[in-house]
C-alpha cells in the first residue's frame, strides 16, 4: 500500500527530486532501525533491573502485594478523632497504659500550665534545622562562588580547586557526615545541621557561580576603570545584579532542606523524622497519620510561602530545575 503510493508520487517527479526522495526515505528507514534497537536495549536493561530489584528485595513484589492492602487495612486509627488527640497531645479514651495510646506524657511544658504538643515541637526542630543550615550554607556558598566564577577570578587553578571542593561537598553522602558526627557529638540536631549545611554549600555554590558568570560585566569594567578593589567590584558591580537570583535560589533550597532534614532526622538527627520512623515502625496508626498531616501541611505552606516570596522578588522567572532534588 505504502509502496504503491510511493510509486504514484515518483511518477510525477524529475530525476533530481527522485534522488532526494530516495535519500530521505533511506534516512527515515535508518532512523527507525536505530529507534527500534534503542527501545529493545532499553527494555532489556529495564527488565534486568526489575528482576534484580525483585530478587534483591526481602519480600517479593507479587507475593507481598496482598499484604500491602492488609497493612493499609490494619493501619486505621480507632477513630478519626484519635489523629487529632495524637496531634495535640490530648488524653485518649482508648488508653490502656501502652505507649500506643499514650499521647500526654510527651508534652513539652513551657510554663506550669502551658505546653507545646510534642509533634509540633519536633516539627519546629526540623524546620529550624532546615533554616539554620540553609542560612549557613548560603553564606558559605556566597563566599565561595566568586572564587569559582571565571569572570571574577583569573587563576584557573583557584577556580578548578573551588569547583572540585563544591562538587565533593555536593556529592558526599549526607548520612555519612550525620553518622560520623552522631558518633562523636551523640545523636542530635547538630549533626543534621552540619550534614545539610555541607550539602547546601555545594549545591548552592554551583548555582551561585553560574549566576555570577552570567552577570553583565559593564558595571564591573566601569569600577575597574575607576580603580576599585576586588571587594568593591564584587560589592557594587556584581552583587546588585545577582542578589535577587541568590535569594530566590536560597528560598528554593529552603524547601528542599525541609525535606532533607526530615529524612536525616529519621536516620538519627532528631526532629519529626525520627518520631515518624519510630511511630510507623511500631504500628502506631494515629500518631503516624498525625505526623503525615503535619508534614503535608508544613511542606505545602513552605512551598507556597517561598513561591510567593520568589515571585515578589524576581517576577515570573521559572526555577523548576532542581525542585525534586532532596
Amino acid at each position: 500500500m505504502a509502496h504503491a503510493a510511493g510509486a504514484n508520487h515518483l511518477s510525477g517527479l524529475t530525476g533530481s527530486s527522485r534522488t532526494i526522495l530516495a535519500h530521505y526515505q533511506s534516512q527515515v528507514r535508518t532512523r527507525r532501525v536505530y529507534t527500534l534497537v534503542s527501545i529493545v536495549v532499553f527494555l532489556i536493561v529495564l527488565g534486568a533491573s526489575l528482576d534484580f530489584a525483585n530478587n534483591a528485595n526481602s519480600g517479593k513484589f507479587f507475593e507481598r502485594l496482598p499484604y500491602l492492602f492488609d497493612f493499609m487495612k490494619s493501619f486505621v486509627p480507632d477513630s478519626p478523632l484519635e489523629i487529632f488527640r495524637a496531634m495535640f497531645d490530648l488524653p485518649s479514651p482508648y488508653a490502656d497504659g501502652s505507649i500506643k495510646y499514650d499521647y500526654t506524657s510527651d508534652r513539652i511544658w513551657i510554663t506550669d500550665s502551658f505546653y507545646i504538643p510534642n509533634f509540633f515541637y519536633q516539627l519546629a526542630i526540623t524546620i529550624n534545622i532546615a533554616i539554620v543550615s540553609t542560612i549557613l550554607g548560603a553564606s558559605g556558598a556566597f563566599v565561595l562562588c566568586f572564587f569559582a566564577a571565571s569572570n571574577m577570578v583569573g587563576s584557573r587553578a583557584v577556580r578548578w580547586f573551588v569547583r572540585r571542593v563544591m562538587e565533593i561537598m555536593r556529592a558526599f553522602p549526607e548520612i555519612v557526615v550525620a553518622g560520623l558526627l552522631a558518633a562523636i557529638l551523640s545523636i542530635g540536631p547538630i549533626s543534621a545541621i552540619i550534614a545539610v549545611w555541607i550539602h547546601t554549600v555545594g549545591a548552592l555554590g554551583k548555582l551561585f557561580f553560574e549566576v555570577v558568570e552570567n552577570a553583565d560585566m559593564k558595571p564591573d569594567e566601569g569600577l575597574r576603570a575607576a580603580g576599585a578593589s576586588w571587594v568593591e567590584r564584587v560589592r557594587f558591580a556584581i552583587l546588585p545584579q545577582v542578589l535577587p537570583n541568590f535569594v530566590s535560589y536560597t528560598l528554593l533550597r529552603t524547601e528542599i532542606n525541609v525535606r532533607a532534614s526530615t529524612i536525616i532526622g529519621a536516620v538519627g538527627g532528631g526532629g519529626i523524622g525520627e518520631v515518624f520512623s519510630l511511630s510507623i515502625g511500631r504500628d502506631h496508626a494515629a500518631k503516624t497519620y498525625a505526623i503525615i498531616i503535619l508534614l503535608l501541611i508544613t511542606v505545602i505552606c513552605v512551598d507556597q510561602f517561598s513561591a510567593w516570596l520568589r515571585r515578589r522578588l524576581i517576577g515570573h522567572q521559572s526555577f523548576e530545575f532542581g525542585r525534586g532534588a532532596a
Partner: protein
Amino acid sequence: MSSVPTINAAERDRLLATYPQVFHRSLMQRWGLAISAAVVVVYLAFCFAFFNVIPTFVNGNWDRASIYLQDWYSWRAQPRLRFQNGEVVPQWTSRGQYPQGANIPWMQPMPDGGYTVSFGGGDRLDVTPARVDIHLDGRSYPVEITSDQAILPPGAPAAMEQDGNKVMVYFGFEGQAEIRSSQVYIQRRFLGWANFFFDTQSPFWGRSLPEVAGLMLSGERLDPNQSNASLALDNFLNNASWQHADIFSKLTQTLVMAFVGTLFATLIAFPLAFIAARNITRSRPVNWGMKRLFDFLRSIDMLIWALFFTRAFGPGPIPGIAAIFFTDTGALGKVYSEALENADDKQREGVKSVGASPVIVQRYGTVPQVLPVFVSQSLYFWESNTRSATVIGAVGAGGIGLKLLESMKTNADWDKVAYMVLLILLVVFVFDNVSNALRSRLIGRKSH
C-alpha cells in the same frame, strides 16, 4: 581624586527635586539589608542556644573523633598479649588481619619467652610476664606488673600515664598500648587498608602485586579446579572482611532504585501532564484535579513513601523504587504540564486543520516541541535521585545507604565507610557527566 565634581546649591536643589526616588528612599530601601542581616544574626543566636551548641561540642568525644578519622585511611592491628601461667600468649580479635601462625615483623617472640612489639623508630615494648619495658625516644621505662596492677616508674613522660590499675602508653599515630595486670592490649596502626584485595583465607594473601599478576597470568594452578585468574576474582569478591561482592550488589540496588523509579515516574507523568495542561485538555475541573494530584504526590515526603512501602514490601529496592516513583510522578507531572502550557499552539492548529485525530495532533503538533525539555528534566531528576536513593536506603529501603548506616553503627568499620563513600562519589561523578553530556546534546549548552 582631583576629578570629583563640585556643584553649586541651585544645581543641588534641582537634582534633589528631579530624582526624589534616589535621594529620599524609604526606610526599608535604605536599611533593608542591614535589618535583615540583624534579624538573621538574632535568629542564629537563638538557634545557637536552642540547639545547645556549646554543651554539645564540649561534651563531644573528641579523642574518639581522631581515632575514627584515622580509621578512614589506616588500619589497626589489635592483639592482646595475655599473661597465662607465666607465659605471654598473643590473642587476636575476630577481625583477623593475620592468618594463624603468621610471622609478623613488628611482633616477634623473644628468646627468653615474651614478645617484643616495635612501634617504629626504635620505640618498642618488651613484654614479659613480670615486666614490660617501654622503649621511647631512646630511653627505657620498666613497668612493674604485680598480681593486681601495673605500676609506672616515676619520672615517666606525658606519653605514658597511670590510669587506676593500668598503664596507658601513647606512640602517636603508630599506636598505643594498655598494660594491665592480666594482659597488654596493643593497637598498632598502619597506613592503608588491610587485606583490601585478599583476606587471610586466600592463597594470594601476603603476596605482592607483581607476584599475584604473575600467578594469574602464567603460574601453576593453586586450585586445580579453576584458573588462577578466576580464583583471584572469586577471592577478591568474597573477601570476608571487605565484602566487595555485597557492596557492589548494594550499590547496584541503589542505582536501580534511581533508574527504575525515575523511568516509571516519567512514563506515568507523561500522559497525565497532557490531562493537566490547560491548553490541551479543555476542562478546568479536570486540569485542577490533576494538578492537585501532582501537588499531593509531591508534597508527601519521599521519607514517608519510603517508610510506608518498607513496611509493606520489606527492605530492598522495591520500596525505594516506589518512593522515588510517587514523589517524582508529582514533581515531573508539574514540570511537564508547565512545559506543555508554554508550547506553541500554531503547530497543533496546523496539524488539526488537515483533519488529524486528537492523538496524532499531540504526536506531531506538541511532542516534537516539548520532548527535549521532558527528556532533559527526567535526566536531571535521574541524576539527583542517584544521590537521594542513598539516603532513602538508609531509612530502610536498602541499598548502599543501609549498608553505610550499618557499617557506621559498629564504630569500627570506618575504612569500609570510606571505601563506600569513594564508590558513591565515583558513581555520582560519572552519572553527572553522562547526564550533563546527554542534556547539553538535547537542548544545547545555554539552556542549563
